[in-house]
């Protein structure tokens, strides 16, 4: 029989009558314990040896434990000092006894707290009594410390673990637990494997076992020389863990954005692009948001410290102002709110990407658009909110709109139902809602795929005529928006949005995030 070198060595060293531990075999064969273990398991799989496993626990003294083993436990010292001071007969001042016992620092507290627990006596308002019947020589913890201290010194020579084992056996578990709690002992568990030859193993040995010539690594030389043809390759443990490799990956939220973009492009949407810092005109006024709307205060949006925007399309500016003041159409009413061009010209960070939709619909961004059109963006927006596990000051908004003749609420519902189904959200509900810029408007609700909770997943509607008419759009436009982070949290199960986004990001979280596709 031909076997790899290590297996032959282990087989030869093993005995059919004496179980030998891996450590013993390693010493005898002059090989590493891991090599012997692997060889032993391979031999066991071939039925040539038996491997007996048992768990062994060892207890070793900590530095503090060793100290007490040498100088006696603080409470024992306290008791002896107390007895010497006559506390067995009448209470004695605690300070005096502590001094006599030579206790200082942390030892004092340790001594006092264990003194009463072990029944050495009582401590009452600074006075100490000692129980004359207590026997410090019978202190189980002290005895255990001594036993472990002896065991450790004995075990020093062999290093085969027997010494620790023996001392462990002398001490009962409760006492060891107690010593561990006190930080005097460290306990460790390990598996001890012992190897014996099986009958098959004995037979194989009698028939003769030879070492097979194995090759560890395939080399370029072997390939060119043709040597590889006669080589036997050493078997690897192919189940063992390999060293960790950290490849790079696209940010998990970018992956989510890519997924959304894929879906929308598939549904016939083109992508928009435009400024993050923009005139309030595009961000709010075009959207028929009255200038005294609460969402337009700087508590809600970020105003920038720059001069007003240089150019706005003058005729559009006039039409938007008219819509705000007098409404649109014969029966239209305007707002009873102040309106000033200077406000419209102020530059803010966009609070929504609907500013892009306004720029595109106005014909200012890519020229006049003929219906039908579908457009989208997945871009960053800025809100002056409180930063917490579900809110960021900056987040990605998914924005989309469809421009066509005679769009109805049913078309809107059909489009969004289709979109959300791509993300496993079925049964979308439409709650009638109000936005200054759409009518009818709907908040979209869906069931969380895991918790089954009804949660808000978007906001939608048909743009009002007060929005479209000034922009020069004479057909219908339906639009919707939602936070990408909300969709991502929903589909990835992330619980704190701050792990995902921003400089507080945890690199480990990013390394371990599951891929979105």
């Amino acid at each position, binding site marked *: 029989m031909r076997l790899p070198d290590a297996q032959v060595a282990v087989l030869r060293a093993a005995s059919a009558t004496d179980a030998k531990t891996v450590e013993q075999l390693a010493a005898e064969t002059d090989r590493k314990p891991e090599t012997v273990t692997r060889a032993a398991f391979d031999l066991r799989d071939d039925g040539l040896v038996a491997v007996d496993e048992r768990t062994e626990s060892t207890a070793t003294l900590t530095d503090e434990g060793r100290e007490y083993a040498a100088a006696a436990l603080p409470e024992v010292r306290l008791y002896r000092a107390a007895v010497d001071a006559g506390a067995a007969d009448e209470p004695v001042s605690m300070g005096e006894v502590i001094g006599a016992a030579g206790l200082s620092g942390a030892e004092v507290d340790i001594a006092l707290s264990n003194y009463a627990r072990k029944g050495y006596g009582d401590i009452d308002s600074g006075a100490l009594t000692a129980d004359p019947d207590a026997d410090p020589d019978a202190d189980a913890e002290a005895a255990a410390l001594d036993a472990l201290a002896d065991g450790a010194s004995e075990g020093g020579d062999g290093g085969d673990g027997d010494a620790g084992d023996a001392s462990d056996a002398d001490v009962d578990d409760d006492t060891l637990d107690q010593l561990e709690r006190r930080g005097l002992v460290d306990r460790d568990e390990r598996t001890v494997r012992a190897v014996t030859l099986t009958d098959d193993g004995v037979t194989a040995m009698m028939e003769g076992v030879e070492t097979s010539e194995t090759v560890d690594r395939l080399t370029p030389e072997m390939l060119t020389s043709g040597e590889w043809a006669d080589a036997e390759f050493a078997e690897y443990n192919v189940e063992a863990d390999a060293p960790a490799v950290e490849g790079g990956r*696209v940010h998990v939220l970018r992956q989510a954005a890519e997924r959304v973009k894929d879906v929308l492009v598939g549904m*016939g949407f083109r992508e928009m*692009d435009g400024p993050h810092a923009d005139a309030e005109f595009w961000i709010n006024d075009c959207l028929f948001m009255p200038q005294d709307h609460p969402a337009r205060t700087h508590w809600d949006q970020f105003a920038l410290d720059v001069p007003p925007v240089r150019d706005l399309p003058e005729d559009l500016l006039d039409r938007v102002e008219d819509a705000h003041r007098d409404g649109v159409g014969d029966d239209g009413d305007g707002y009873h709110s102040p309106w000033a061009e200077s406000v419209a010209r102020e530059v803010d960070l966009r609070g929504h990407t609907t500013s892009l939709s306004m720029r595109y619909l106005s014909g200012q961004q890519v020229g006049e658009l003929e219906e039908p059109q579908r457009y989208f963006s997945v871009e960053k927006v800025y809100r002056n909110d409180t930063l917490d596990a579900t809110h960021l000051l900056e987040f990605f908004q998914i924005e989309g709109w469809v421009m066509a003749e005679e769009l109805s609420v049913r078309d809107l519902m059909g489009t969004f139902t289709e979109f959300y189904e791509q993300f496993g959200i079925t049964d979308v509900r439409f709650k009638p809602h109000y936005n200054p810029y759409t009518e009818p408007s709907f908040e979209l609700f869906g069931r969380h795929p895991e918790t089954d909770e009804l949660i808000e997943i978007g906001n939608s509607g048909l743009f009002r005529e007060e929005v479209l008419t000034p922009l020069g759009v004479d057909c219908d436009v339906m639009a919707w928006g939602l936070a990408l982070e909300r969709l991502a949290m929903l589909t990835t199960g992330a619980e704190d949005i701050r792990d995902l986004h921003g400089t507080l990001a945890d690199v480990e979280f990013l390394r371990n995030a599951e891929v979105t596709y």
Partner: protein
Amino acid sequence: MPVVDIDTDELRALTGHGEKTDEEFEADLFALGLEYEGETEDGDKQFEFAPDRLDRLSVEGVARSLRYQYGDARGVHVPDPNSPDWTIEVDPSVPDERPYVTGAVVRGVDLDEAALDSLIQLQEKLHATMGRGRAKGAIGIHDLTMLKGAGLGTAGGSLDLGGSLGAGGADTGGTDAGPVIDDDALDGSEPPESLDEGPARGSGENSITYRGVEPDGDQFVPLDADAAMTPGEVLTEHPTGETYADLVEGLERYPAIYDEIGLFSFPPVINGRRTEVSTDSRDLFIELTGTDQWTIDKMCVVLCYALSARGGAIEEIEVVYQGDTYPEEYGPELVRPDLDTDEKTVGHDRIETVLGVELDREEVVDLFERSGLDASYTLGEETTRYDVTIPPYRVDVLHPLDLIDDVGRAYGFDELEPRYPDVGTVGGRHERSRLERAVRTALVGLGFEDTLNFHMTAADENYERMQIEEGSGAFGAEEAVGITSPYSEDYTQLRTWALPSLVQVLENNTHRSYPQDLAEVGFVAHRDDDENTRVAEARRVAGVVARTDATYEDAKARLQAVCDDFDAELETPAVDHPSFIPGRAAAVELDGERVGVVGELHPAVLVDHDVEVPVAAFEFDLSGLA
């Protein structure tokens, strides 16, 4: 969004639907657009809704909407008011900043604790919404029996009354500490002459006056206080006064309302204690002041409808503006509350298009009526037109489209079958977003972890901690776009470059294993007044290689690989850049254009960020790869 607190027992009583469970109400209200949010400490249910139907800011309004939804009520209902007995005279001394006033009298209200709570809630919610935090409109509700109307006809009587005012002061709030009338103060407040020659007089028997008062003028005892104070003292010594002080800050005269006894209300800050409303109050006097007549009139109407639902009889008042400042569209003499209905016309075909269903005319009329509107139709050549009457408490109907929304809600949007629109369009990505994606893919292929950082930062992070000075000309040192009155000192400007963000990520991950090779393709911006928005926006490609043996070459090798991928010709002439070790920094030139920087980060930068391994880094403009 507004939240209304609702006692469902009240809702059962006011709707007449004692059999409805709380859960049924929750479902019915969801259909109306009111979302259940939770419970208050007192066990009231809280519902959040969008700020259009402000007539639903109290249980009375919600009950009214439900009665329409249940079909118990139909069409427009307008209370029939009694003719006026009281007049509010507006004296020209009223501050220009708060010129308008309106009001109503409501008699015979049955105010138990719940009704009073509801009234207070409605007042607060109207302040928060239409009233824009009391700035645009503020409400004062008073116990009418505590008011003493100055008799009309005695010209100037209401103000030319130093003695009366003093006497009234002694009565104020029943305290001994009657205000001492300071002659100087009275002179200062100067009863205007126009009062004597006032062009108009209300026909009611009683009048009160809306006028201006000197900050240190007349005293009154405000709510929740025991001592008389001047308006100025209220602003500094009374908690409510402190809260609303900024609304009257800088005014020469403060808004004030007087009856024959004296000052009893200091809008928009606080009412006087004398006229405080309690559960014993039966007759109420409501006054509203503000910056827009329409807004305060509508707030008044919402209040009147709520009190009418509590059995109150509405009584008109007259408002007479004696100076030149009166609402242009209504003239100087008004009768309020303005319970006039509005009319709008909407076409049948538009309704069908928006809802996507076919409807017959009677059904549409029925749906209007179930929405609390009245409608009649005329057959036109192209389409049937509905003339729709809108009740005065509606503040949200700006356009006929808003009426179609009402029809849809009454029809039940849930009843509509979704359909995918039969419209063909061609989809596609924006070129920049395709380029960004391709660069990210290349970086990830080189082993970089892609990061996503905030665009907002602080000057300290962007400049100082990178050892550069704003405006110094170094790459990344461009002038900042600052955020106006920032909320947080961590976010005071837009980042001018991306490397500081990556170094911050390194700083926050020193406990994680190395190597840490991080990259970002992201937004930066700086101030540039030549730009239309004054902000120059750009996308940058940035990377850091942080490992125990990182050197300049590690950054350059990866930079080179990315540039090769996009067939951009890279040159790296040496530059001085304070963020990098001298002699180990270079400009990134792509196809001859200087677009970035590459180098080994300066130890001072690393130590300041607690990074204990060398870091090689690069950043350049994404457009260099295009």
